[in-house]
């Protein structure tokens, strides 16, 4: 059962909602939870990383090299988080579409390739998979639900010890009622994708 999960993204993608939905679902499952994050980069396009500790731990931060899973809404942010926090043999699960930083946009720095990221992760015996969560979100009806798609995939691909119903309840509690149907559809599409493509990921 996973206990130390990092959630990475770019400010504005909704990674913080993912960490809170995961934590809220865990609480409904009667687990203890700690979430550590900062909101500075959020909305201003900076990196966002949330530490989610389920079931054990008193402090809100995951130690370096301790994250069993890093769920990322964006490849560069997943890579950034993994180099610091991913444990040997840990999982990096990332959305595949890049969100280019200003530095890359003006040609000041380079964006890493997906292949580079895979090679890097393999060097610490880690495992890595990328999915086009944006495509699934568009199918659900709104591109902004990409974050909830990723939550669904995480649920079905890994053993979190939390019933699916608790995730749905958490989504119902959190999102505006007019977006509920789309969000639940996005979650379902993410779940189905996880079941289909990565049944072996369950630890």
């Amino acid at each position: 059962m996973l206990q130390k999960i990092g959630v990475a993204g770019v400010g504005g993608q909704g990674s913080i909602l993912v960490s809170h939905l995961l934590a809220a679902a865990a609480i409904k499952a009667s687990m203890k939870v700690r979430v550590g994050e900062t909101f500075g980069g959020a909305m201003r396009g900076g990196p966002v990383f949330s530490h989610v500790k389920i079931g054990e731990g008193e402090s809100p931060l995951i130690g370096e090299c301790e994250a069993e899973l890093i769920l990322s809404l964006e490849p560069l942010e997943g890579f950034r988080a993994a180099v610091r926090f991913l444990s040997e043999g840990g999982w990096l699960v990332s959305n595949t579409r890049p969100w280019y930083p200003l530095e890359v946009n003006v040609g000041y720095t380079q964006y890493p390739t997906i292949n580079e990221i895979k090679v890097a992760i393999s060097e610490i015996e880690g495992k890595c998979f990328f999915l086009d969560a944006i495509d699934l979100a568009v199918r659900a009806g709104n591109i902004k639900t990409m974050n909830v798609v990723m939550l669904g995939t995480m649920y079905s691909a890994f053993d979190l010890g939390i019933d699916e119903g608790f995730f749905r309840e958490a989504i119902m509690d959190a999102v505006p009622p007019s977006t509920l149907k789309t969000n639940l559809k996005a979650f379902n599409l993410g779940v189905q994708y996880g079941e289909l493509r990565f049944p072996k990921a369950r630890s």
Partner: protein
Amino acid sequence: MVGGEWAKKRRRVLLLGNQAIARGAIEGGIGVASAYPGTPSSEIIGELARVSRDYRYYVEWSTNEKVALEIAAGAALVGVRAIVAMKNAGLNVALDTFMTLPYGGVRGGLVIVVADDPGAHYSSTEQDTRRLGAYARILCLEPSTPQESKDMTRIALEISEETELPVLLRSITRVSHSSADVVLGEIPKREGALGFNKHWGMPYRWNVYGSPGAVGKHRWLEERQAQLQQVAEESIYNSVHLVGASTGIVGAGIGYAYVLDVLDELELNSQINLAKVGTPYPLPATKLQRLLESSKQVIVVEEGEPFVEESIKQLAQRLDCRCKIIGKGAGSPIPLYGELTPELVRDQIAGILERSLRKSTKRRQWEKRWKDRISSRSSTLCPGCPHLGAYWSLRKALERVGGNVPIINGDIGCYEQGGYGVFSQQVTATSDVSRMYQISSSYEILDTNYVMGSGIGLSQGERKAGYCDGPVVAVVGDSTFFHAAMPAVVNAILNDADIALLVLDNKWTSMTGHQPSPVTGRTAEGKKSRALNIAAICKSFGAEFVREVDPYDINESTIAIEAAIRHKGFGVVILQRECALQRVRSRRKETKVMQVDEEACVECKACLQLGCPAIRFRNGKVNIDELLCVGCGLCKRICTMAGITDR
């Protein structure tokens, strides 16, 4: 934020530390809540405003932290419990009142919440405001989790009433902005104690100068310290657990949480005498004495300055105790700057107890090998941000005024990103006087930046000292104008300083989460209210040069800024356009987006210098990200080839 589930009456919910503080204030029976937005404290009053219609208390965003504290103090003087919240720098603004209020104290409970920011994720300094609690001689509580944040807030209000002094609750980013499962408590019926008595318990109680005068009230305050000491001794948030070990560890605030995790990981629980400190001032001397007298060495783990460490050293000296006290700074893996992390705490404890460090050499080498492939990602101004237009216009105006070395004095808010220096990582600093550095984007434009409202005073000082190597300009936002800048503006008008002031009025206090400012026309609870007019205010102060322009209109803005700079004396240009994020949120239909005509593009890269994150230079051509673009048209206006159009 998930967790605003109070109405659903669940007992155990996910709460952000700040939401927990808000809940604690309601459980503590507040009647008044006030604050000025300041990260990481803003969600406290934000949450109280969000749920206020379910409870009966008054809540507001005040013009600045000093006013906010005075509003809460006013409530306390007439017997009503109150909470005021601010960030670390905010306490500096409120310090006059903070230091003087304890000379006489309060009747209704008053809790002053200050959220520090170790690591300076959101702040200009890492200052540790526990020192200011001790400076003001009031009880300081330091929570280590969101649960404690809630409970301590409620208890602070009770203690404040018992001791007749305000109580400081010192939170930090990693508690205020962390989330955890929190068990909710009951909400009491608020009992009326409303009334005013000018000689309540002491002649001229609320009047520092009235007999017995300031010294007499200082004496009263000193006599109260014994009562505060008693509170600390009896507090459940201070504990000591002896196991007969030779090493002890004291964890203060969140330091305790890190210590627990490290002791678990290293399996040292039965081998360490452990103490928790939840009242860094005053320290629970009796409990700590037991620890000091049974340990050969004691490690102190705390977030911020070595405040508890120094106090424990003083205590050990008073007790004539030989115990070695180990903290942060020289000789420790934990430096005096930067925030605590699990690694630092682990390294310190593991080092002293001779356990191995976690990270292998192989891992360190791996990280080093890959770190250059991880591009930095600077935070930026948003697509469509009016400040992009304002800064572009300022650059153009400076070019037109010609040569020389301008000084652009910045301020705090989203526009402070004009000083983040995103592309200046390769600057070679020199000691040449008045050296002109290239401004290559909106992010290199601010030359000075300290605190709220400081740019205007600095500008005047630069001029009055005789600086004449170039234009002197100050930049300020709408919220900051009222918070801090007005006295400096009055000063500039009276001394006729030859400076230009740009007021970037985007209608909201944006950086901290879009709280209303005095120009917005909304209350904290979202009701309509009066909206003040900055141009009218400047004119009423007697400013002779006041112009209002739209920062999306680059031509108009550049002309106005140039004229303000050329004007001999104080010139004000107010650049008014609502924050793009707020506009996008309130828009119902799809917005237009811009696109680049690839054949027209000559790669001059003028549009890239605008600083908009939606504009990309890929494969030799400029391209606009249709998911990010909000269609403001700034790039269209600055394109040298008229190559950007509506899609």
